[in-house]
């Protein structure tokens, strides 16, 4: 059963990723990105990461994607006649060859490694959110604070950048 769900989420997320890159109209690309994000969150559920699923749906699909769509609608772009790089066919062959090689290597590797201290049964006892919270506010507290300061800087930077300039200088193009 898990295999069926995995196949569905994996195939749809890959298809949505390809559509995001290949579609012509930017709004369609944004909607394909929405499908990608939701299906990736389905993969998180299969991996017992419920908290990350919620964060993915709320933050990515709910906030970041709406920001993208808002800017797309605000700018009112017309589709360019030339929307790919002029020599993009030269990129395609090396990319597909490289991805086939990477896939070959990945399927060959057994991926054995040192086991950590959070086995699945113990995590499921208390719930994933509990485990994430305990870990985040004990071992990863410094990183948490750094991310907080980073987000504050990003907010201030975005406001300063997007603010309308006060006076139109004489060299303005309009």
């Amino acid at each position, binding site marked *: 059963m898990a295999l069926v769900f995995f196949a569905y989420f994996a195939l749809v997320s890959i298809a949505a990723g390809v559509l995001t890159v290949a579609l012509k109209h930017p709004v369609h690309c944004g909607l394909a990105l929405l499908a*990608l994000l939701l299906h990736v969150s389905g993969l998180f559920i299969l991996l017992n*990461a419920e908290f990350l699923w919620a964060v993915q749906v709320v933050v990515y699909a709910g906030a970041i994607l709406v920001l993208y769509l808002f800017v797309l609608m605000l700018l009112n772009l017309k589709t*360019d006649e030339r929307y790919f790089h002029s020599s993009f066919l030269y990129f395609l062959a090396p990319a597909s060859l490289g991805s086939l090689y990477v896939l070959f290597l990945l399927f060959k590797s057994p991926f054995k490694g040192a086991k*950590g201290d959070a*086995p699945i049964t113990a995590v499921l006892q208390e719930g994933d959110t509990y485990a994430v919270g305990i870990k*985040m506010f004990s071992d990863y507290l410094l990183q948490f604070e750094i991310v907080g300061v980073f987000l504050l800087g990003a907010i201030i930077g*975005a406001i300063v950048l997007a603010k309308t300039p006060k006076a139109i200088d004489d060299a303005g193009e309009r």
Partner: protein
Amino acid sequence: MVPLSAYVAVSAVLFITGLLGVLIRRNFIIVLMSVEIMLNAANINLVAFSHYLDSMAGQLVALFIIAIAAGEAAVGLAIIIVVFRGKISTNVDEMNLLKW
């Protein structure tokens, strides 16, 4: 039981799709969307290893990646608005002010 290499393969395919998008698309907003695809591929990888190797660290790093993606989107879109205000274009080929 789905093997770990299947998750890693999905992540690799998504990452290469995003990388290709960054390389061949010329619209700045879609280049940023491709960056989001690559960040999601990295997230799948981190969560899959976190699940299969019984560690919580991967999920926490994935959370931090989501936070940083939010900041990146905000600043990147603000830059797009500033550039669009001056040049009426979001084509990355026409943004060559810093080139010499």
